[in-house]
């Protein structure tokens, strides 16, 4: 009983369908707070689908269906009457492709606050600054806060999107291949950032980069064809995988 209490996320017998297509098959796992969990696996195995369960992003897709129990902070997020807007404030998301709004840098970060009814100017600009600092972007943009976000480089845009997600102070951060479109330097900065953010956030990250997963994560989950083949501490997965499929995938014999 006590052990489930510090599990911020738990999934029990999750099955997920796109119309007839069975995309996730009987997934079970638990994640404790203030950790980084990486999900790896071949393309199309259901990593993004799994990640998007926790902020109910899959709801936007017509004809999807979920079975099983999905708990965030002990609450069944698919129960009737759950406020998805509130859930999404608690569970932030960073997407694969940087997707800043066509607004200024400042307004991008302030957006989440504004839609939550925050009107206090002082508070907003304070929060914008701390978020940009947390995302390690402040020094680069502090003089051009009121320039368009599109004037930033791809890596800067992605850090802006992270800052934007941090501004609403979520407890969980879902990151779907956040560095896949970036150069090695930007990637390294984002990895540093993730490690630092771990102190305050629970992070779930999808990545195709094995080194990245082994560098930054505490646990790793390996998906294949909609199944969670293996889930355990990163060290164990990368050094002594229990399943042959995992071993093959990690060592590059497969996919």
């Amino acid at each position, binding site marked *: 009983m006590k052990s489930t209490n510090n599990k911020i996320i738990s999934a029990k017998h999750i099955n997920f369908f796109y119309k007839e297509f069975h995309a996730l098959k009987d997934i079970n796992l638990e994640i404790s707070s203030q950790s980084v969990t990486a999900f790896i696996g071949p393309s199309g195995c259901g990593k993004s689908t799994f990640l998007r369960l926790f*902020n109910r*992003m899959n709801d936007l897709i017509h004809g999807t269906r979920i079975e099983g129990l999905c708990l965030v902070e002990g609450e069944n997020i698919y129960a009737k009457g759950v406020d998805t807007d509130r859930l*999404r404030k608690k569970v*932030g998301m960073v*997407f694969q492709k940087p997707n800043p*709004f*066509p607004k200024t840098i400042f307004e991008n970060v302030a957006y989440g606050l504004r*839609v939550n009814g925050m009107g206090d100017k002082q508070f907003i600009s304070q929060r914008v600054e701390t978020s940009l600092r947390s995302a390690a972007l402040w020094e680069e943009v502090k003089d051009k806060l009121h320039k*368009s976000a599109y004037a930033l480089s791809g890596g800067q845009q992605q850090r802006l999107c992270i800052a934007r997600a941090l501004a*609403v102070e979520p407890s969980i951060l879902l990151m779907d291949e956040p560095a896949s479109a970036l150069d090695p330097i930007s990637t390294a900065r984002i990895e540093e950032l993730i490690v630092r953010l771990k102190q305050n956030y629970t992070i779930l990250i999808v990545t195709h980069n094995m080194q990245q997963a082994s560098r930054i994560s505490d646990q790793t989950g390996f998906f294949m064809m909609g199944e969670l083949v293996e889930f355990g501490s990163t060290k164990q997965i990368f050094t002594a995988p229990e399943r042959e499929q995992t071993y093959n995938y990690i060592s590059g014999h497969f996919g």
Partner: protein
Amino acid sequence: MLAKRCNKLRERIVERIFSVSGAITTIAIVLIVVFLFREGFGLFGSSTIENGYSLFVNAKNDISSLSPTDTKRIFDGEITDWRDVGGKAGEIKVFRFDEIFNLYSEDAFGDNYALLPDKLAEVIDNNPTIIAFLPDKYAPKPSSVVKRLTDRRITAADFVLGTQWLPTATPSPLYGMLPLILGTLLVSLFAVILALPLGLGVAVYLSELSDNRIRRIMKPAVELLAGIPSVVYGFFGLAVLVPLVQRTFALPVGETAFSAGIVLAIMALPTIISVAEDALRSISPAMREASLALGATKWQTIYRVVIPCAKSGLLAAIVLGIGRAVGETMAVLMVSGNAAVMPHSLFESVRTIPATIAAELGEAPSDGTHYQALFMLGCILFIFTSIVSIAAEIITKKHHTSKEL
């Protein structure tokens, strides 16, 4: 090697074809505009008196020219005393050319009407308060007894500020286009006020809120509506709307600016909906997801992200809608009542610029001032629509620079 050469050549040819057709189109459009304005501007500087005619008075009369409006009112019998147009008191005697044949018998004019000018001069001499409207061909030479009123030229002010559109009045047609401008503005403004909120609302509904099934039926239906010829809308207006308006508001006639505005709004709606919906749809789902993932509600996402992102497309929808409303001819011709009078309310008959052009161009002789006046109306219409699109352009630009999008 040869294949590669051929390919290159083909690309070059295709490129040429595109640039040539682009150039031809541009030139054609420019020529049309130039033609329009050249024909239209011929109006200014034309005489206010009907072509080939002049006005004559007795030489003792101190009036030496008359404004088109005064001329018209004199010949309509509304002004009967020279005092009213700034002359010496004396009852005006209006004399039209035909009346000469009542005063003299046919043979008094001699061979080939050679003596006709002299006889006309005689009449003018005998009547000190006369004003005679005579063809130049038989007009008497100005002399100690006969004075020809100097032509006034039609000015831009006559045209733009004149409140009477009477292009076929003799001897002095009036081309005051103010009632037409106001009629056009009234009808289109009303139509736009009706159509814009409705059209944008439906577009938002279709692209953001309705489920796919409804959208799949509605979108083609709306696009189909945009293709219906305007006569059909006019017919619908005439058969259904006009009687309804007349009964509902207990009006003497149902053909009013109100009816025309509604028909126009209905016509502009499909264009607005279709273009606006496309604009909203084209916004990448990533934008919506980004907003929703931050805990924004659907509505917040729509008005804070989707609509601002689609702004230029939405403006295009608005401009096209207004353009359709301002330029539409047939339907308005059918339901507006076509009275070229200064409009005072929505519930009066009005006449719009395009309807006027359509109705009158066929009857206007191509060398006359009427014809030129119609072209001038075309120019005004062109300027109207240009202003709308330039304004839209400026608004988007301004938004872009102020927020540095």
